[in-house]
């Protein structure tokens, strides 16, 4: 008797649960709307980045207060899943009105018709650094508040101790000088890692940080003349030379195969002598070592030092029901004071000179002036082709395989084959 009662209750519960779960499904389906009733949805990748999210929230609050017609609503996503969320939303035509985009992905989304060009902002945007603007087919689709420079972070006392020259913008380390310096540090045994290149970072970090090294050798991700093939660029002798050198960093014990979860912390704790990282580490490292901290240009591996250009940028979507409203916000948010505030709070390079003057450290002769020099002198945009997201994943996997000991030529050849096939099957994105 007892059993049957239990059974009845169980079946009843089950039967009640089913419609409930169905209801949950339908509710989940219609959660995001483009922009209705003056409300503009905004998506950002900043959920895990308090400082940047707060800076953006500030702009949005200012905007919402400045007028009554529109109301911008922020939805923050963690960076790891952001791109996939946007792509999924794009596929089901549920993109928000305003969204941020990692710079190199702009051509892809513009080509696919998901982004709308920023009309009427040309005058304001002409003052921005060219690397923070997302362009495709002669139209501007996005702008960013800041750029980031890649630097070799170390301490003056370390270099002095081992008799290593302090490189400058005009006279960076040569490849031999760089390797000799690392070997010297390694021989001393004072540091677990002579150099840490932050291999524990995932996603876009790999092409962002390591393709400039490839370019410094004289190779590239793809032949930028027409973006038709990577043959010769990604698997030519220069590229193979890069791959061999890249792997040798690990086999010679100069770089850990897998960095710790927080490479900057390892550097601050004296585990690594030199840290290859973005300028975002400047605050923490300066806090730890003060004036002793050095932010050096990356070495010249044959073709001059190179760093990645272009960071996160803002754009508006094509399927936004209120384009005028979205553009209105974009215009409002493009003011120099906002460029300054976002750059200041995220410790990045301000995108306009007027904003730079307002951010401490970027004024003439300021301690951060050198970052702006690097960005202006060494920055290379990642390939401006809608095929970039594919190239990025392909390069990431190939570079990881090479670092783990795959044959450089074979791995690069495979990447070239895949990239070429993808460019071709898309009709070269014409």
């Amino acid at each position, binding site marked *: 008797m007892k059993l*049957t009662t239990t*059974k*009845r209750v169980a*079946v*009843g519960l*089950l*039967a*009640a649960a*089913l*419609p409930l779960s*169905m209801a949950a499904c339908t509710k989940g389906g219609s959660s995001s709307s483009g922009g209705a009733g003056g409300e503009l949805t905004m998506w950002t990748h900043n959920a895990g980045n308090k400082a940047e999210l707060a800076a953006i929230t500030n702009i949005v609050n200012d905007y919402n207060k400045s007028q009554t017609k529109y109301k911008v609503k922020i939805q923050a996503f963690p960076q790891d899943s952001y791109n*996939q969320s946007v*792509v*999924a939303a*794009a*596929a089901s035509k549920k993109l928000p009105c305003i969204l941020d985009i990692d710079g190199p992905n702009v051509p*892809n*989304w513009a*080509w*696919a*018709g*998901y982004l709308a060009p920023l009309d009427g902002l040309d005058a304001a945007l002409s003052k921005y650094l060219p690397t923070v603007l997302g362009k495709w087919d002669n139209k501007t689709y996005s702008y960013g508040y800041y750029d980031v420079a890649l630097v070799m972070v170390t301490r003056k006392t370390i270099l002095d101790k081992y008799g290593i020259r302090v490189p400058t913008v005009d006279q960076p380390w040569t490849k031999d000088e760089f390797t000799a310096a690392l070997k010297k540090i390694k021989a001393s045994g004072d540091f677990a890692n002579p150099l840490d290149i932050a291999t524990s970072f*995932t996603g876009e970090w790999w092409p962002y940080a390591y393709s400039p090294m490839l370019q410094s050798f004289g190779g590239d991700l793809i032949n930028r003349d027409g973006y038709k093939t990577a043959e010769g660029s990604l698997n030519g002798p220069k590229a193979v030379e890069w791959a061999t050198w890249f792997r040798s960093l690990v086999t010679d014990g100069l770089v850990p*195969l*897998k960095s710790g979860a927080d490479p900057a912390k390892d550097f601050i704790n004296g585990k690594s002598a030199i840290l290859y990282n973005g300028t975002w580490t400047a605050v923490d490292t300066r806090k730890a070592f003060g004036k002793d901290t050095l932010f050096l240009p990356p070495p010249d591996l044959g073709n001059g030092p190179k760093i990645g250009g272009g960071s996160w940028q803002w754009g508006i979507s094509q399927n936004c029901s209120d384009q005028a409203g979205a553009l209105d916000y974009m215009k409002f948010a493009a003011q120099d004071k906002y460029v300054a505030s976002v750059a200041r709070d995220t410790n990045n390079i301000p995108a306009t000179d007027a904003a730079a003057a307002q951010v401490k450290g970027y004024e003439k002769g300021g301690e951060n002036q050198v970052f702006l020099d690097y960005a202006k002198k060494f920055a290379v945009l990642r390939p401006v082709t809608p095929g970039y*997201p*594919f190239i990025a*994943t*392909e390069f990431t*996997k190939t570079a*990881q*395989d090479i670092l*783990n*000991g*795959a044959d450089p030529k074979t791995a690069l050849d*495979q990447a070239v084959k895949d990239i070429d*096939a*993808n460019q071709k*099957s*898309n*009709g070269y994105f014409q």
Partner: protein
Amino acid sequence: MTTITAAENASAVTGRKREPVKGSRSSTTTALLMLLPAGILLITFLLIPIGLTFGLAFTNARLISPRPAEFIGVDNFVRLFADDTFWASLRNTIIFAAVIVPVQSACALGLALLVNVKMRGTNFFRTVYFLPVVTSMVVVSMLWLFMYQKNGLINQVLLKFGIDGPDWLGDPHTALLAIILMSAWQAMGFHMVIWLSGLQTIPGELYEAAELDGAGNWEKFRYVTWPGLRATRTFILITITISAFALFTQVNIMTQGGPLDSTSTVVLMAVRTGFQQQQTGYASAISLVFFVLVLAVTLVNRYVTRDKDAR
């Protein structure tokens, strides 16, 4: 309220199933009504996607593109079978399944036998063994990620015994093994509970009879327990096999398929191709191959188990 009535009707149906069917029309209607929610869910989330996969696999459809998908015949499959990563993924998937099915089910059975003894404190151990199951796989993966590090917990323990442990997830030789061990640990509590339910359906008289016949512990297990677990065995075999083939979460979090494709799996490859590389058509082709693979294994499973049922 209506759902409850329907549920009562349904339990009435099950209660009546051995009697000759009377008034079957109304019970058929009720049955169909009961089927409806599950039916709709299955059709929307299973049958339609599978149908789409079949179609898309023969096109060059992509996730983001203004160009319409074109029919390209079997190009996707030609490309797939020439892809080294695919063969590595297939090999890893099969190794994973081949190792984890016996290891996990044997460990789970062992645990079930241990917690099935009539002793104080068994409930405590049941809970402890079951804990990893209720913990999300993502959390478990993150924790083990730290434990598997070169200077992580596991290597520190090994060091106490004078063994210099490898970089478990960073070495192509140990990465897959590390994932297998961790997956078995996480899921075996679940199968322990199923074995346990099987063990408790075996009548105590059988053991008493066996004891009277002078059977030792091993004979009791071999001739009473093992045959008594036949139905449970089939169920466990099928569920572990299917979940083993769908290996994804652990790999996605811990190694992303690396180093050197040593932990790449078919599902991981399909997700990577479909989402990160935006090649919907190609990813569909991978999924289709995966579908055929699982179908084949299930058919073999069915054949093996049906053979035994007929006996």
